[in-house]
């Protein structure tokens, strides 16, 4: 259908980013194709060692899903996006396809083994999330292609994750966010994935911080070293949410907190994690 309308048409998912952009005339499509009336595009399933999310699954559905709660990082992310009203409408597929540098899902999911399933007139494609997000507001999707499913591999036993974002108020995008996914064995960190949100054109993997944690027990010193490395990896722009230096400081503090929560969860503790806002 989008092929029929040509390049001037756009897909409309939850609309919680696109409709505000249309009002600002930042997006100006000739046609909108509403995906909300297509049945079977909203689901949460488990199969072959992964969780599968239909592209039109609402943030609120993920927030309240016991299955998605198996990966606490996903619950942290879903439950903190904007506010109740936006979570009732906004979708995980729409968030990834929008690729807003401040969007929550891309930053949370990049720390897990995530595949984006896409469909277009030339058939289906499965794209690793890291290859799917090309740049700010730019994905690997062709204009007539859409996201159908997001597949997230369930990490091995002894894993724990956390997503912590700081927002000035509920409905706005975060000023900065940190996603941490750890795998521990006998109190030693086997594997770590750390991503920083809103401090670059896309989510930034803090690889130096990840390396600094591997093979260590996560004492205060190790966590402080990782947070310091994450601060160096951030590449923020000053804007109304704060100066570049403020955001570096903030993201380092969020990484520290996210590592502490993720480590607790990897030990099997119930630790509450969430977006922080006034």
């Amino acid at each position, binding site marked *: 259908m989008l092929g029929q309308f040509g390049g001037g048409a756009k897909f409309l998912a939850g609309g919680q980013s696109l*409709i505000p952009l249309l009002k600002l005339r930042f997006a100006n499509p000739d046609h909108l194709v509403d995906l*909300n009336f297509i049945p079977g595009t909203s689901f949460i399933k488990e199969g072959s060692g992964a969780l599968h999310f239909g592209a039109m699954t609402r943030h609120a559905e993920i927030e309240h899903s016991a299955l998605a709660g198996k990966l606490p990082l996903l619950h942290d992310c879903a439950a903190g996006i904007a506010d109740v009203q936006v979570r009732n409408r906004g979708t995980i597929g729409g968030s990834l396809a929008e690729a807003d540098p401040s969007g929550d899902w891309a930053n949370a999911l990049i720390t897990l083994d995530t595949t984006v399933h896409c469909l277009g007139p030339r058939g289906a494609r499965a794209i690793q999330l890291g290859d799917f997000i090309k740049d700010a507001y730019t994905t690997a999707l062709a204009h007539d292609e859409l996201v159908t499913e997001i597949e997230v591999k369930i990490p091995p036993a002894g894993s724990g994750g956390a997503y912590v974002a700081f927002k000035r108020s509920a409905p706005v995008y975060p000023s900065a966010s940190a996603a941490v996914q750890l795998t521990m064995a006998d109190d030693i960190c086997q594997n770590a994935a750390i991503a920083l949100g809103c401090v670059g054109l896309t989510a930034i993997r803090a690889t130096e911080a990840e390396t600094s944690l591997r093979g260590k027990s996560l004492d205060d010193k190790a966590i402080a070293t990782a947070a310091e490395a994450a601060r160096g990896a951030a590449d923020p722009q000053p804007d109304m949410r704060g100066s570049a230096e403020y955001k570096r400081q903030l993201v380092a503090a969020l990484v520290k907190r996210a590592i502490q929560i993720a480590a607790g969860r990897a030990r099997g503790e119930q630790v509450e994690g969430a977006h922080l806002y006034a």
Partner: protein
Amino acid sequence: MPEAAAATPTIEKIAVNININGKSYLRQIEPRMLLVEFLREACDLTGTHVGCDTTYCGACTVLMNGLAVKSCTMFAAQADGSEITTVEGLEKDGKLHPIQKAFGDSYGLQCGYCTPGLMLLSHQLLSENPEPSEKEIRRAIAGNTCRCTGYMNIFKAIELAGRNMKGD
């Protein structure tokens, strides 16, 4: 000038039928019409307010099939065939809804601009969780901005409404 005439193309209207507060409203509208415009301008239901028009303030909150949505951030065509509840639909047979009564009894409003949105958001909250803690209320109404009350009486109103609805 021919350029000026070409700048305003005729937009083909579409039929949209929405059940609002138990009554069917069939209207011919431009596809770009927002749900809040449909309610206020096509149906004369002006209890739903437009605060910021930027998905921030929550004054335009209505229930769509029982879930709170910001009606400034949806096209009316997207609500075709669904059930919408606005503040006008809370009162039944001349009797205020317990949420409305509690907002009055607790002084949970001053100017009243944000109140319809807050009451409909509270409706979803209390239908899922009749006894919310203050923390849960804070989280739930975080998308509704009130510039008068300081929120304390709103928390009290929602707690009271929950108690009264349980007692019913």
